[in-house]
């Protein structure tokens, strides 16, 4: 059953929380709402659930208008940031509660509770009370309860945000598995680009209550239609440099002219904004065609397995993302390199002109002969 949002708008005290959003969501799809705090993710979910009514626009499920239908009459399940469970019920009773309400037979309830508990690895905790569980186990219970009734619409509002980062990583991987096999429409809100990429599916980028772009997650990531989307869907944020094309040459900032190759070859003469992903900037030259910028090293931030080196270039601050842990001294002059084949090109209004060519998807290896 497909869900269709038609020009949905929500005004709260004359403020547009949701601004004319249209969206088609197919059954069996995983859909991410990506945006900062207050971008409208939760507001949109509440409208989808029927917890709030839109000021204008319609919400259809399989062609049927649900706009005015209350949440009680809709087939929807929701998981929140906070771990919400019934404190006086065991894990099993918590998971079973929506089925009890729906008057499902006890034997059927037992079977489905066990199935979903196994899926979330809490089958050994069924007799415990929520207070006896860790945060991760509590959220697993809440997710299990949302999954057990097999609702046609499942909404998850930043469900992992309150968990330790290792647990988050673990649950994220499991979610991919769990949702692969479902027919529900799943909608998942997050502020983190990396989480969206790790979960896959489709992504809708929200900004100030507006839908900026919707499509397969990796496609939105690789072809952000505006600089704003590129910023929102990049962690660390995309780096920008002003530049121009004149004749057959590219001039980035104050760098010497470079030839227009590959995806850049069709560019008209004029001024542009060029976007460079942190992972595409390098501190060592690897090929002759790379363009070099003079920069000053700022702080290097270190995650467990990567180094984010911040550098100053003119008035801009850029980030260079490096694999592994490296040490740098703040204040040192250094060169930063970019392969022009990696450049995103935006016009001066911030609209995408052309994005880098992606390597074609993995060829079918079955066609090749493999030594056994």
């Amino acid at each position, binding site marked *: 059953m497909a869900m269709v949002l038609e020009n949905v708008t929500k005004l709260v005290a004359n403020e547009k929380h949701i601004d004319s959003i249209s969206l088609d969501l197919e059954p069996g799809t995983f859909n991410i709402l990506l945006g900062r705090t207050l971008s409208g993710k939760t507001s949109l979910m509440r409208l989808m659930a029927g917890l709030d009514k839109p000021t204008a626009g319609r919400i259809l499920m399989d062609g049927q208008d649900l706009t005015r239908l209350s949440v009680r009459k809709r087939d929807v399940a929701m998981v929140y940031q906070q771990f919400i469970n019934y404190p006086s019920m065991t894990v099993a009773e918590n998971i079973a509660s929506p089925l009890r309400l729906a008057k499902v037979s006890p034997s059927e309830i037992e079977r489905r509770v066990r199935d979903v508990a196994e899926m979330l690895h809490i089958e050994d905790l069924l007799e415990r009370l929520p207070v006896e569980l860790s*945060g991760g186990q509590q959220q697993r219970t809440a997710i299990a309860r949302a999954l057990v009734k097999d609702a046609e619409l499942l909404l998850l509002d930043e469900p992992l945000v309150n968990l*330790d*980062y*290792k647990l988050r*990583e673990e649950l994220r991987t499991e979610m*991919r598995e769990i949702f692969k096999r479902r027919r529900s429409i799943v909608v998942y809100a997050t502020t983190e*680009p*990396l989480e969206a*990429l*790790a979960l*896959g599916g489709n992504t809708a980028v929200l900004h100030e209550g507006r839908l900026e772009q919707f499509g397969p997650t*990796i496609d939105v*990531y*690789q072809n952000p239609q505006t600089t704003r989307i590129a910023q929102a869907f990049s962690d660390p944020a995309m780096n920008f440099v002003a530049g121009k094309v004149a004749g057959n040459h590219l001039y980035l900032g104050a760098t010497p002219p470079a030839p227009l190759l590959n995806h850049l070859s069709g560019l008209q003469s004029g001024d542009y904004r060029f976007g460079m*992903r*942190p*992972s595409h900037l390098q501190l060592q030259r690897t090929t002759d065609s790379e363009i070099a910028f003079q920069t000053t090293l*700022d*702080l*290097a*931030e*270190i*995650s*467990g*397995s990567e180094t984010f080196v*911040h550098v100053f270039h003119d008035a801009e601050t850029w980030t260079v*993302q490096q*694999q*592994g*842990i*490296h*040490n740098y001294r*703040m204040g040192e002059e250094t060169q930063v390199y970019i392969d022009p084949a990696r450049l995103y090109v935006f016009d001066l209004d911030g609209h995408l002109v052309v994005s880098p060519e*992606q*390597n074609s998807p*993995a*060829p*079918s*290896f*079955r066609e090749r002969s*493999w*030594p056994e």
Partner: protein
Amino acid sequence: MARIDLKNLAHAYRPNPATEADYALNRTNHTWEDGSAYALLGPSGCGKTTLLNIISGLLKPSEGEVLFDGKNVTSLLPQERNIAQVFQFPVIYDTMSVYDNLAFPLRNRKLPEKDIRERVMEVAEMLELQDDLKKRAANLGADAKQKISLGRGLVRSDVAAILFDEPLTVIDPHLKLLLRRKLKQIHARFKLTMVYVTHDQLEALTFADQVVVMNEGQVLQIGTPQDLFENPQHTFVGNFIGSPGMNFIPCRVKNDTASVGELRIPFRAKDHQGKTIVLGIRPEFLKLHAAPLQGTHKVSIKEVENLGNCQIVTVRFEEQTLKVKVAEGQEVPAERGFLEFPLEWIRLYADGKLIEPAMEPPPGQESRQ
């Protein structure tokens, strides 16, 4: 600034602890160098806050001693320890001006007003509070208030150590970078002994010269971020640091060789009798090839996650699931691939603890670094 020694330190919140599980902090002996920045890192409940509270004097340990520059301070109250503390939420006087807030710890110690002024101006400049000095603290935002808290922690140059307990939690994400930079610059300039507790891995690893990784009341490793990444001393550290964490594969042991399938790693087996031996290697160091090369091992490909700037490939090897980090745009075979285990990045663990490389590599293989 002071060197901090932890001697036979342990803490149990309940009396008469019997087993390790009764201790919130298990027996620890460490020396923290004067002028270094330490971060305590671990999952919630690992004992990092207990340890910080023992160092600050908020908690008296049930066993052992804390020494500042050789002086036993175990029984001293926080205010008798000559330390500065910065907490998660701003601790400031709302009715005072920013200047008076910053000057307060110095006036308390009866410094001449001229010296106070010099020091306050210096700290205000570092934290970019110069323009706010005359404002009342109450009128400032949460970020600015926390900057004042940091400033009050930093303003005294004679403290033994500055302790930070999740100091950037209330700070807006885009300002966090600025404050991390400030803390790093301040540390480089004044060589203060700093101890920092946070659950944010990026913050801990960025801030610290030395990271203290804890789990279940144990200090598992103290090392630079690079050490933790390249040479985790414990399987917990290998998994906890880095995303995804280190891969571990149980080994068969025969004579002086640990093996997984055709992969063989020499080690001194008699030093580790009866222990479980596992091989550890990070996803970043495994190399996935489309065709067999010498020394590669056949694996089946289970899943490819495209994370944009890299791909995480899940493979099955000898009935184990491994993660391999593959460069953006690199072709990943659809069904089968060939995995290379660079010898210099293979680590062996006995009952969770790193085994130091001890033997000559077999002929024909490169030596381990």
